[in-house]
């Protein structure tokens, strides 16, 4: 089933069809929520809330667009709510655990460790750009800032990441 078919089925009253979206996107959504909240339980709560929001607002999702770009705005709102409820306390990082991810290479771990040391906002930009491959236009829509701001913030975030990675090498 693809996203458009799942959407149609959900709108026709088939609640089970929404499982398609949860199973397909929960992995990356949880990773992004962990990045934004830096808290394992908050990330799971925010992601679950965002999926419930997505189900209730599914009618507003334009199937010609990518589901995740639409969903990401809901997820981000939920993460910010969770973050403001929790304050600045951060309990967990985003670095993959060896036991959970046995296939992860040392180089990947270094990169995740460096991203973990960035601020949540910088980390978000770096991940959305480098792993999701979003364009500046897509970033601008999802983050609600002008394209020029995306460019300057991304530049600063990459500068910081380069510094962290060069420090790790030396």
């Amino acid at each position, binding site marked *: 089933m693809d996203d458009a078919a799942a959407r149609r089925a959900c709108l026709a009253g088939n609640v089970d069809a*929404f499982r398609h979206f*949860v199973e397909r996107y929960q992995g990356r959504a949880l990773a992004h929520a962990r990045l934004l909240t830096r808290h394992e339980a908050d990330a799971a709560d925010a992601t679950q809330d965002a999926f419930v929001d997505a189900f209730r607002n599914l009618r507003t999702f334009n199937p010609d667009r990518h589901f995740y770009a*639409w969903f990401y705005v809901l997820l981000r709102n939920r993460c910010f709510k969770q973050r403001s409820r929790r304050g600045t306390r951060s309990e967990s990082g985003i670095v993959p655990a060896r036991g959970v991810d046995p296939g992860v290479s040392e180089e990947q771990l270094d990169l995740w460790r460096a991203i973990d040391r960035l601020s949540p906002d910088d980390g978000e930009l770096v991940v959305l750009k480098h792993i999701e491959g979003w364009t500046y236009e897509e970033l601008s829509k999802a983050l*609600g800032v002008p394209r020029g701001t995306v*460019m300057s913030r991304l530049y600063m975030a990459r500068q910081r990441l*380069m510094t962290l990675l060069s420090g790790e090498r030396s």
Partner: protein
Amino acid sequence: MNPGTDCERVRPQLMAALDGESVPDVADARQHLSSCSSCERWLKNLESMNGRFHAVSYPRSQVDLWAGVEDRIRLPDASLTRVHRLWLIGALVIAWRALQLMFDLPLPMLHPLVPLAAAVAALWQISGDPLAIETAAPELQKRGV
């Protein structure tokens, strides 16, 4: 060595060009690049860092959210929309005023804004800020995301 003002100006443009984005002053930036070894080195470092992301995937998660999501989406949506909340506040105020008129309650006994404030506070507690601007769905529609 710290980059100069020109370097700081052109580097975001070089970065955007490397990302495949359209950059208005890219010719200017490339001209600077051809004569600046510091920016040349910086761009190589950036390319090398970008390359490190090719093999990166998200950490696997053992959390499965479907059961929790399913429980909630099968329940009827009990949350009040902003329009419903405003209707409710309006209805409470009208009811209060009607009671005042029906039972001829003297106005100074209770300032007419008190029940409104009480209604807003009660709704705030029950379902969040009743006057909040909902950014989720309407915002998405507006932006066409």
